[in-house]
């Protein structure tokens, strides 16, 4: 169960690059604040029940990843509330939690503990994690020697074995080879049947339509449309078409 109510998130975007004390002092003396404030998310309200898979679509910079970061508690809302029941598990994109010098085994333990698993829990699932990623023979080699596909497979495998109540997947569906994509999609379907909640951010609208019966269309920080995936995706596609016909990128920069 996820309940998001009147969620607003303000960002500061530095318009001067202030990364040293000298620059900060100079900017302060000139009376410049050094940043512009803008709303990355405005007035978002929704509720999602267990067993639902929700696709989040929209153009770059519309606030999709910000929404995920808020759900994962990485960011704090400026206004409004987020209520999440159960364990939220963000799928760390491309194995961001992995350290290249460590071997696969150590990385699994580190990554899993970051996602909230105890040592015993990791131990009992370790074989399944390695088995699902199909990487048993390289687990003692440093991750820097893996191909990018192998890293993603391992990262995905760790995430789905967390037994999360809410899984956040940001733009990672299209990685791995064809075979692994099918396998992971199956896994996500299994999740849904088990009554878990899944959020998917993706620009692959077909994948969203296949996996999610419900979709959010987010544009310029606002929840433009919330409804059954086919309708939302169609409306989004039409909007993109209109934009293409009416002068390309113009509307994207209107904010």
């Amino acid at each position: 169960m996820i309940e998001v109510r009147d969620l607003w998130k303000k960002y500061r975007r530095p318009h001067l690059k202030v990364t040293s004390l000298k620059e900060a002092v100079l900017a302060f003396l000139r009376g410049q604040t050094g940043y512009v404030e803008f709303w990355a998310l405005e007035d978002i309200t929704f509720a999602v029940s267990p067993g639902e898979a929700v696709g989040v679509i929209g153009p770059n910079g519309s606030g999709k990843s910000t929404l995920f970061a808020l759900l994962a508690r990485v960011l704090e809302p400026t206004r409004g509330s987020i209520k999440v029941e159960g364990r939220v598990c963000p799928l760390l994109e491309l194995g961001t939690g992995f350290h290249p010098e460590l071997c696969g085994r150590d990385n699994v333990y580190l990554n899993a503990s970051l996602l909230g698993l105890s040592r015993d829990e990791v131990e009992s699932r370790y074989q399944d994690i390695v088995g699902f990623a199909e990487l048993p023979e390289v687990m003692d080699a440093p991750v820097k020697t893996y191909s990018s596909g192998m890293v993603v497979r391992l990262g995905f495998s760790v995430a789905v074995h967390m037994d999360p109540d809410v899984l956040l997947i940001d733009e990672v569906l299209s990685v791995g080879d064809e075979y692994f994509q099918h396998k992971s999609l199956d896994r996500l379907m299994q999740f849904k049947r088990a009554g878990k909640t899944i959020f998917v951010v993706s620009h692959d609208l077909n994948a969203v339509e296949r996996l999610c019966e419900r979709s959010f269309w987010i544009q310029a920080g606002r929840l433009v449309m919330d409804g059954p995936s086919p309708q939302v995706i169609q409306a989004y596609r039409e909007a993109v078409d209109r934009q293409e016909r009416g002068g390309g990128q113009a509307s994207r920069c209107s904010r």
Partner: protein
Amino acid sequence: MRELVELWRFREVLFNLVRRNLKVRYKNSVLGFFWSLLNPLMQIAVWWLVFKVILGNEQKDYTAELITGFLPWLFFSQCVLDSTACVTQEMALVKKAYFPRAILPLSALFSNLIHLGFAFLVAVILFIIWRVDVNVHYLLVIPGTLLVSVFAYGISTMVAAWSVFYSDVKFIVGNLLGLWFFLTPVLYPLNLVLQKRVEDADNLLKGMINWALPYIKSLYLLDPVAISMLGYRSGLLRGGQNPIIVPLDLGPAEQAASAAEKAHLIAQAEAQARATEAALRAQYPILHYVIGASLIALATAIVGHLIFRRLSRVFAERG
């Protein structure tokens, strides 16, 4: 309280990060973990060469004094240096996963505690070889380590948080640590500072220094790092004795003409040293300074933690 529960819940992360820090630091080096012992040994060897061999320091057990002072210093300085990068290095994690951010400076702290533990073992082995008496007073290193750890946590959290926003912090910290090192009694005996006097305070500047000197000396002794070193020295080398000591000045005795005169001069020097020592101990009641330094360490830790907590909310936005 809620923070502590949260930290406990994520203890595995801390454990794994410490393990990773230790594994990764000496990756791709042939001697591997031995560097954590060789590095301080080399450093001490350099000072030994400069101060003992070249400058001919006559202080008793100077090498042992060097080692006991250097152990807590190395721990403290390495902690603070590591903390400049502890958040920025893990930005990928900070931006993606929730965990109590205090785990990052804590992981630097615990990694260095483990290094300290190993270095300490080597020191004890050396002491046994040198026949320094190993006794129950060695336990004084425990409160000594605790004190410097609490203080290091406070400084580390501040440094870690500010480093996310300003890369200048790293350079400032490096320079300040270089100065701080000489403001602690690693290379020279403590009484040198406590007995410092301004000769003929005839001009304004000297007068001002003369006026400020007692306060400077008090501040010097309130430094948790210095107190921790004194704890180490007292425990490891002096059987728990008050660390304020005045060594004998045997200069005059050495030039004595006869054995009888020499014995007399030695007795005189000894009486003088004991008298000065007693005066210094009365003037600087060590227990008060230990309590003062502990309070300072605790206050620093709390302030550091609060600053870190406040700023850590926006780490993911600003990194």
